[in-house]
């Protein structure tokens, strides 16, 4: 094999590796572990989760939102239908936050069973709709990716 051929072969092989790496990052589902959040049932089931920072996702139970805007804190309950977890949030939730919306909170579950967080993320769907437009069809998933 000539030197030039070797060089070309190396170039092609390197590009293949680079392409495979990008493809792997884009296509594999390894991000799922990281985007993952626990539902209240799973959080309650996982005893070892008392100290580590975890994410909890679910619906803000209607009628439980107690929002003290001056003190910049809110209390509400996250539910998945079966179980619910009371959440104490310091810092204001985003504006679109409301009862009945999907939300994910990041923080720690205290020994008293209250989940403390300073990060509330509202999961509104990615649809952009006119107000009197068609009803949204794909609002079933809480977190799309």
């Amino acid at each position, binding site marked *: 094999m000539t030197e030039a051929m070797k060089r070309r072969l190396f170039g092609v092989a*390197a590009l293949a590796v*680079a392409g495979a*790496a990008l493809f*792997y990052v884009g296509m594999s589902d390894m991000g799922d*572990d990281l985007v*993952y959040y*626990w539902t209240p049932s799973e959080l309650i089931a996982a005893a070892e989760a008392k100290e580590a920072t975890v*994410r909890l996702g679910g619906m803000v139970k209607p009628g439980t939102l107690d929002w003290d805007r001056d003190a910049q804190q809110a209390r509400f309950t996250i539910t998945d239908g079966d179980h619910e977890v009371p959440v104490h949030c310091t810092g204001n939730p985003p504006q679109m936050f409301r009862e009945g919306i999907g939300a994910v909170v990041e923080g720690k579950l205290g020994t008293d069973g209250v989940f403390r967080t300073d990060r509330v993320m509202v999961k509104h769907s990615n649809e952009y709709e006119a107000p009197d437009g068609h009803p949204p069809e794909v609002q079933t998933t809480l977190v799309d990716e």
Partner: protein
Amino acid sequence: MIAQTIGVLAKELLIEWRDRSRVSGLFFFGLAILLMVAFASPSEGALRDQAAGTLWVGLLLASTRALDQAYAIEMEHDAMEAMVLWPVDPRAVFYGKAIANSLLLTTVAIGLVPLLFAMYDVQLRGDPLMLLGFLVLGCAGLAAPGTLYGLVTAQARGSSVLLPLLLFPLVVPCILAAAKGTGVVLEGDPMGQGDSWLALLGAFNALHWSLSGVLYGRIAEDT
């Protein structure tokens, strides 16, 4: 080419070994950053939370000092041209130097970790092998693009600013994955996220180690 790579690597390591001041200099540089961040930190609880991130910021800053000097010896002796005229494949030069830089950084990292445990009051809850994996892959991820840009900026004006400016944004994924992964190993990993960060780090390394090797040859022709 593999034999040449090993030759370059051996030469680089020999230089490091003869003049051990660079390794110890980098180590104390990293240590100084750990100390300074501790002074800047509001509380000891916060210190514990940011331990992994601080380690990697320290290593990142230390890496720019290391890579700045990766070509200092060649520059001092006007050996840049000799390196091109030398009958050695430029890719071998790149891989030799990059592996040497990875080893150098990993050594510093392994030296800093016990101090991190002591000073930042963290303990190892996860797998020590996984921690080693993050250290090695993280340092390798810094070294590959760093060695490439080290050659570029060594010959440009204002190189001490230019190298971080080019390198930092490029290695964001590497630093992010390494810091997050290290944090997960230290704190315990109930949601099992360590593997994903390790995989991302692996992909970053695959991308940059392969691509930089090709591009280095192209740059070396023009120097």
